[in-house]
């Protein structure tokens, strides 16, 4: 049976469309926002949802997503809460893939086997653990594989050709290219450099390639969409959760307005 991620990319390819992948942190600014927001984002054009698992020490994230974690952790949002959110989302949406993105320690403490079992039964499709390179990740990847979940690995501007090969052979679902040297939401993109690296990645894999870190608006999404299969947008959305943290009802409309613009830009390609 094809996974939700494979099915999604196949139907996008047939339609000649690029995947739009929004990132939001689960439970930011409050837990009740997240599931309705996920549904709203799908309506606004999201193809896959990347749901951030809050962590106390998000080393690869810039200030915007750090603060999102801090806001969620005020309410002690745990992996169990995140699973419950995905489960609720799946009650009415069985097609949109959900990728959990976060850091290893909450998973390490839960145990890889238990994580994989609970994530799978909640309806999670893939896990992206920022601080788990394939060299340390074989046990985790094996546990995900038992439940047909995909490990998503990052490739960076500094990644050598040799490592691109290693990462691509460990990955399934899609691979994620980090388009800038830096943390999430930081620098501006060099589209030409991204295009070069995409060519290098595609020499090693048939998997779809998503690009994230540094995509801020419709223009940059269009530029990246021209060379990638998927565009990941995070900090620019999470900033809305920050801006409307005292009025959580306003978070989803603000995020979806931005997403809709980016969707339009991608569909103009």
């Amino acid at each position, binding site marked *: 049976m094809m996974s939700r991620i494979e099915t999604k990319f196949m139907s996008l390819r047939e339609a000649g469309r690029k995947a739009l992948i929004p990132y939001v942190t689960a439970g930011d600014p409050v837990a009740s926002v997240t599931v309705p927001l996920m549904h709203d984002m799908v309506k606004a054009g999201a193809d896959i949802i990347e749901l951030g698992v809050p*962590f106390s020490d998000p080393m690869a994230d810039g200030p915007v997503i750090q603060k999102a974690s801090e806001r969620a952790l005020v309410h002690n949002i745990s992996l169990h809460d995140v699973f419950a959110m995905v489960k609720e989302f799946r009650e009415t949406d069985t097609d949109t893939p959900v990728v959990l993105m976060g850091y290893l320690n909450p998973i390490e403490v839960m145990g890889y086997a238990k994580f994989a079992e609970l994530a799978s039964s909640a309806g999670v499709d893939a896990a992206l653990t920022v601080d788990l390179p394939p060299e340390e990740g074989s046990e985790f990847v094996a546990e995900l594989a038992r439940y047909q979940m995909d490990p998503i690995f*990052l490739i*960076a501007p500094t990644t*050598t050709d040799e490592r691109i090969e290693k990462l691509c052979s460990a990955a399934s679902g899609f691979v994620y290219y980090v388009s800038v*040297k830096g943390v999430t939401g930081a620098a501006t993109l060099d589209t030409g450099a991204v295009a070069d690296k995409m060519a290098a990645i595609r020499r090693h894999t048939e998997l779809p390639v998503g690009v994230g870190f540094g995509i801020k608006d419709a223009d940059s999404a269009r530029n990246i969409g021209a060379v990638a299969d998927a565009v990941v947008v995070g900090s620019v959305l999470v900033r809305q959760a920050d801006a409307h943290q005292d009025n959580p009802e306003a978070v989803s409309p603000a995020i979806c307005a931005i997403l809709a613009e980016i969707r339009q830009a991608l569909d103009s390609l």
Partner: protein
Amino acid sequence: MPRNNELSEMSQQDSINDFMNMPDDRGHFGPYGGRFISETLMAAIEELTGAYESAMKDPAFLAEFDHDLKHYVGRPSPLYFAKSWTEKLGGAQIYMKREDLNHTGAHKVNNTIGQALLAKRMGKKRVIAETGAGQHGVATATVAARFGMECVVYMGAEDIQRQALNVYRMKLLGAKVVPVESGSATLKDALNEAMRDWVTNVDDTFYIIGTVAGPHPYPAMVRDFQAIIGREAREQIQQQAGRLPDALVACVGGGSNAIGLFYPFLNDAGVKIIGVEAAGDGIETGHHAAPLCAGQPGVLHGNRTYLMEDPNGQIIETHSVSAGLDYPGVGPEHSWLKDVGRAEYVAINDDEALQGFHDVTGIEGILPALESSHALAYVTKLAPTMKKDEIIIVNLSGRGDKDIHTVAARDGIEF
């Protein structure tokens, strides 16, 4: 997960005949250590590993390191027999390894000299560091000034308050001190922020980590630069007492002064090894910084090790009167030494550490750092339980001038 040890501690210790051959080539100390980092840093870590491995085999590099330790740091540091304190406690003979007499006042400079020489060798013009008590920040700013490198030090906003003197010292040395407000605004958050800087400026920047934590090769590299402490002490005690000691005692935050003292003695089966963590307000209160005594294994800052964490895997805030021990993790080699039973880890609370500070100041005329005072406080418990012909070496890892304000405030004195 490689977490539960099937073998009992004793049988593991008996089955290991070489404790000095860790880590493996991927940086693992048993189940601990490793390289848990984002892909953006992988190329830089691989470059560093290559440079470190070739430098440690290069006689010219090692000669320059030794030269600097001798003429710039002032090594060897004395091994001092604390006669008055020994007599007062009435038990084992106490020797102090005087790292407080190093240039910049602590053991930290041994490591920053080594890493700065490596940075120079790799052509990096900019160095960054995290600091808690400020000792590592000062030691980094010092070597950066000497080598003409740009230096940025990340320091938790709360620690900046506690350690104003060291902050000013770093500024005098030409470093930029960046306050870190995120998370708990202490050492762990400074380390996060330094990692973020490194990811962003990975081409021209060398990250000088101050302790035996971080991704491989840092735990092994920092240990190797600090092991001069134990090599000297091992030679000095044989010259002065004619034999090896019965016990080694050192404080453990990240654990670099401790591993520096312990490592050269790991295969000396008769030498008992004791690391002293910070019990803060007391282990039972939960307000402490003692992951080995009261934590669980997890993954933070690039390695698997014992951590202070909640049941959901979130890192929890630590507490210690000593900023340099206020860290929720510990070097992975200590985690391994604990599990295999080669070292024992105990905890000393704030009040006991303060008492240790006052004892050694009053009896020996030496002002120890509050970090080192934890080790000294444990010696006041341990020495009376030992025979008079037995020997303890305690690492006096730093001097206490930086802590005068903290000590005074606890005594209700304002300047």
